[in-house]
């Protein structure tokens, strides 16, 4: 069987497009070449695949009209496929023809075209009037069947070191021929060379390696260094300048490594050092201006900076944060941190490094000699960044982070900017999830009244998704008397693991009481004098005893104690339903009994709306 090499030559593709092609080419090979490729290699200037293909494409059955319509339709169908009508075959009651397979050589140009057009990218462009859309312009195609060139003419070497066309003798020779002209087509090999070439101690906190693999065709790892005076800058500022801006790998201290695509190492190193120093110089310039102003002065300049149109300035935000951290039980450190939290919004360095907001403020606070607890809280105020990334490590950090999120949510909701569909420009869903995690993982007490009804509703909806329990338990817990975010979460979890023999009696008692009382108006307050039957007096006594127990257990965070107390209502209620007719003839007695049922429902309802839980 012949071996096929297909190379799609492009102008420099983004790393993402390379990965997209890598993911799609095997399936496209199966669809259009009827075979799994032996190799798929992707890189900035070429996408390649090698596959063993059949000499001929398979024969293909083309189904025509049903046999019953031979008279009317056979002639036309046969003509369309260039055969006479008596040459048509019959299969399963249908007429048809067998289209003979083509030699792979004949079929290839069209198949190659189908593969190129079949690739889909996140962003595509046009570059001429061919109508083709691709991630970047396609500049050449080459398809070889063994030593025969079927599509295109030649490949090309490294853009600058070997710009001339190169002959590929056969698919087997592809890698060797290209390596001789400074092109490594195999992305895994490029990655291996980079990782092997990086000196000990390299780091890649911003994950640039995968991009760098697709930024070069001939990776050469070089080392550089910068003037030690830039070590005065916050470490993360230096890292961001190196990684996000330049795609370098920090080596610690004033050293870094980077991956070049060729050139004279000395010239390239010197140039890169100058560029990095330029960026650091720029950052130092701003840093020094900020430090001269100082964090305390920056904190007083917030009244000119709009936090959110209609929601005043960052100065007002800082005041709200101070109030919120106090109400969240924050101590001295979190109050100080709240005052300083947004000061870096007035810092010039944050404008240059917006991703480092919070961190820059923390560094400035450290330089001003604030206690580490305060600085750490300022540093951690935007955590957690994602659903799986850590929450703040310090208590004050958790409190400040929660206060910031509560304020963002409240302000956005008050201004009617709640997320719609997939649009969430202010990151409110992330804030809500962060808040839930602070309550659950950080054991932070977050009273729901701090959120207000709309925000609480929104946050609790996120909680339903976040908690690893069936959603009904969270819904039940949401309707409970628990008024603390973490408390709702813990209650939902406690209900979900409650054994049936304990859940069932409470569930039954609750649903029976609430069903019968559902459409009724009670008397408003139970009148003990109207209690006639022993069974109803027993229920009234039980409610009077159990309700405060549930309340105080909940207040103490003792969910199991509260549930134990609730179970005690079950058997008096069973007896009540056996012995007492709620709908008594005497309307006062009736209203009093309905009130009793409402009291039962409300007492158990402190633990949630059990009707949400399917039984």
């Amino acid at each position: 069987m012949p071996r096929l090499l297909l190379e799609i030559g492009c102008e420099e593709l983004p790393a993402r497009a390379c990965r997209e092609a890598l993911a799609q080419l095997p399936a496209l090979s199966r669809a259009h070449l009827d075979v799994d490729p032996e190799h798929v290699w992707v890189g900035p200037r070429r996408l390649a695949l090698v596959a063993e293909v059949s000499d001929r494409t398979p024969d293909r059955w083309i189904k025509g009209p049903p046999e019953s319509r031979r008279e009317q339709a056979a002639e036309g169908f046969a003509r369309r496929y260039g055969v006479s009508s008596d040459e048509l075959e019959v299969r399963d009651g249908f007429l048809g023809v067998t289209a003979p397979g083509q030699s792979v050589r004949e079929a290839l140009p069209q198949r190659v075209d189908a593969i190129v057009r079949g690739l889909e990218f996140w962003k595509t462009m046009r570059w001429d009037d061919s109508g083709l859309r691709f991630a970047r312009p396609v500049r050449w195609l080459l398809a070889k069947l063994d030593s025969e060139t079927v599509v295109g003419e030649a490949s090309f070497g490294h853009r600058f070191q070997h710009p001339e066309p190169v002959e590929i003798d056969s698919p087997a020779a592809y890698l060797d021929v290209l390596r001789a002209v400074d092109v490594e087509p195999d992305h895994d090999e490029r990655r291996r060379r980079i990782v092997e070439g990086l000196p000990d101690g390299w780091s890649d906190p911003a994950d640039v390696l995968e991009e760098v693999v697709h930024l070069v065709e001939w990776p050469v790892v070089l080392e550089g260094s910068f003037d030690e005076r830039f070590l005065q800058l916050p470490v993360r500022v230096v890292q961001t300048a190196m990684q996000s801006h330049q795609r370098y790998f920090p080596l610690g201290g004033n050293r870094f490594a980077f991956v070049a695509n060729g050139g004279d190492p000395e010239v390239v190193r010197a140039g890169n050092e100058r560029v990095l120093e330029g960026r650091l110089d720029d950052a130092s310039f701003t840093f020094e201006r900020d430090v001269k102003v100082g964090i305390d002065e920056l904190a007083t300049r917030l009244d000119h900076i709009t936090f959110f149109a209609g929601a005043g300035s960052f100065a007002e935000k800082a005041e709200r944060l101070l109030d919120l951290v106090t109400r969240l039980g924050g101590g001295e450190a979190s109050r100080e941190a709240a005052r300083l939290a947004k000061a870096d919004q007035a810092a010039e360095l944050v404008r240059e490094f917006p991703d480092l907001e919070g961190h820059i403020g923390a560094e400035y606070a450290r330089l001003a000699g604030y206690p580490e607890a305060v600085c750490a809280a300022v540093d951690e105020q935007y955590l957690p960044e994602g659903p799986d990334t850590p929450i703040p490590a310090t208590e004050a950090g958790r409190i400040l982070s929660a206060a910031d999120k509560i304020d963002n949510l409240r302000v956005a909701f008050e201004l009617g900017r709640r997320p719609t569909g997939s649009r969430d420009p202010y990151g409110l869903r992330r804030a809500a999830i962060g808040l839930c995690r602070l309550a659950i993982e950080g054991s932070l007490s977050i009273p729901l009244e701090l959120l207000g009804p709309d925000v609480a509703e929104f946050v609790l909806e996120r909680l339903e998704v976040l908690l690893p329990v069936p959603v009904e338990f969270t819904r039940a817990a949401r309707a409970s008397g628990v008024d603390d975010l973490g408390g709702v979460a813990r209650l939902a979890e406690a209900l979900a693991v409650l054994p049936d023999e304990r859940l069932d009696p409470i569930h039954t008692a609750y649903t029976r009481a609430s069903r019968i009382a559902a459409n009724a108006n009670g008397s408003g307050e139970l009148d003990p004098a109207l209690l006639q039957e022993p069974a109803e007096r027993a229920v009234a006594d039980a409610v009077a005893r159990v309700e405060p127990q549930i309340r105080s257990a909940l207040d103490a965070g003792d969910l199991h104690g509260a549930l134990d107390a609730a179970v005690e209502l079950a058997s008096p209620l069973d007896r009540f339903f056996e012995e007492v007719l709620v709908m008594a003839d005497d309307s006062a007695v009736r209203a009093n009994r309905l009130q009793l049922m409402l009291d039962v429902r409300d007492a158990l309802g402190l633990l949630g709306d059990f009707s949400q839980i399917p039984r």
Partner: protein
Amino acid sequence: MIRTLEGYWADYGCVLMQPYHTEVAAGTMNPATALRSLGPKPWKVAYVEPVIRPTDGRYGENPYRFQHYLQYQVVIKPAPADILDVYFGSLAAIGIDAKKHDLRLVEDDWEQPTLGAWGLGWEVWCDGMEITQWTYFQQFGGLELEAIPAEITYGTERLAMFLQRKRSAFELEWAPGVTWGDVYRESEREWSTYNFEVAPVDVLMRRFGEYEEECRSLIERRLPLPAYDQVLKSSHTFNLLDARGAVSVTERAAYIGRVRDLARAVCQLYVDLEAEGDAASAA
């Protein structure tokens, strides 16, 4: 360096143009790029453009940030298949030996919301320094382009810093004995003061509305070129308001939307008139 680029692109067949007379925040906004990118007609142009970005001013104190700097802008429409090679030829012409340096095309997609325009392309890095913005335009004024132009925007200060191995633009040698700083430092200081502290917010806000109104009436009179100038003026006025800190995040989106609506209408009119003109001359 600029003379060499002028010669190189003139030899390539470009019309050499001069800077535009209304403030622009990028060479792209000059009608020689923005409007000429529309429609099917071939167009090759090269020019220096002073770009005005009020928020980037640093009072002449920062060696890398200015509210006024010079771009060298080339637009080739439609882009030929070898356009990247032609561009690298221009770097060779100003003395960058591609075999000795590490030239890199790093993904950088371009979008100009105020013009309803976007394209795909790269930053060109030379030994890690970004020296050019490279874009294949796809849309302008919200219109899909018929012929795809390649836009090549050299940052002249960066490029000169690279060639002269200078760490500050102010130290660049502009002419024997005259530095870039001699020419522009005072202007940076004064304009930064104006942009950040002095520009009268209420007047600017009023002007923004006036430009908008005038643009609409010019569109009605079917005069896309003067109308386009009002787009540029309203855009610049918005940038000044931004520098004065008078625009909040949400208002921002509203202002940008207003400029974009004007740009769309002007671009559509330009395309319509060009097509009518062709139809008339064909008849």
